[in-house]
């Protein structure tokens, strides 16, 4: 599983670059790197469907980012300003939060089953029923389309909502005066 760790480190590194770099285009590309390494990690964890969707979504996300950046500006001017007390305070709070969150999540994660050994209480039933009753080859498809079909409807609705939302927000005139 050494590939997984390498990819994690890559994505963390690319994430830091995406956050810190001054050129917003480079930032969006770095975000793309994170997304693609996530997609490869999905493949490594035996989730090919996820990887496909992730790649599609990632391409879309980067395209949207680049589109917005090209329409506006690609320099992050806010990084040029000197840091003041407020910024240091915010960073201090983040450090405090990070330490506590990491600490508590380590404590909490200890109680979870080990990585690579899920409980699969419901899933074992799914695997049996999905094959015998639905006759589906792809079990993920069986879950999203049959067992949990309502979630998929919800997912489509969310997409629909955001399309209408984007259309709403991009209109030039909202209020009639």
């Amino acid at each position, binding site marked *: 599983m050494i590939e997984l760790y390498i990819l994690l480190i890559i994505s963390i590194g690319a994430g830091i670059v995406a956050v810190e770099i001054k050129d917003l285009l480079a930032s*969006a590309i770095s975000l793309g790197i994170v997304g693609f390494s996530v997609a490869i990690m999905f493949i490594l*964890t*035996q989730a090919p469907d996820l990887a496909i969707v992730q790649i599609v979504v990632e391409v879309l*996300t980067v395209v949207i980012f680049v589109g*917005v950046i090209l329409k506006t500006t690609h320099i992050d001017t806010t990084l040029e300003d000197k840091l003041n007390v407020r910024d240091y305070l915010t960073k201090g709070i983040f450090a405090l939060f990070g330490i506590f969150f*990491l600490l508590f999540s380590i404590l909490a994660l200890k109680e979870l089953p080990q990585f690579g050994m*899920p409980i699969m209480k419901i899933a074992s039933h799914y695997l049996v029923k999905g*094959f015998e009753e639905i006759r589906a080859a792809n079990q993920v498809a069986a879950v999203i389309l049959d067992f949990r079909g309502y979630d998929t409807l919800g997912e489509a609705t*969310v997409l629909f909502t955001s399309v209408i939302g984007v259309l709403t927000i991009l209109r030039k005139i909202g209020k009639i005066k």
Partner: protein
Amino acid sequence: MLPYLGCIILFLIGIYAILTKRNLIKIAIGFCLLEYSVNLFFAFIGYKKDALAPIYANLSQARNFVDPIPQALVLTAIVIGLGTTALLLSVALRIYEKYKTFDIKEIKRLKE
């Protein structure tokens, strides 16, 4: 447990960006990072050592599959994430049109 921790660190980077960065695009990027980290974490939960992707290649195959449920859920979550990101960026675009800046400290007409 280490992969889980990797996700948590990615999560914290996202929080860092949202909390300390002042550029709207950077905040949106931090938000995407948050989203990826949670999706990744969810996908890791379903991973089973030495098991196959939950797809039947032939009918008599042994049933040693990874957990399909988190994959289905993450599929939904990824799409929801795309929707929210698109909405966030469209608002950011419009804000730039109106305020001519991405600096969050300049965008403070609503206060008190």
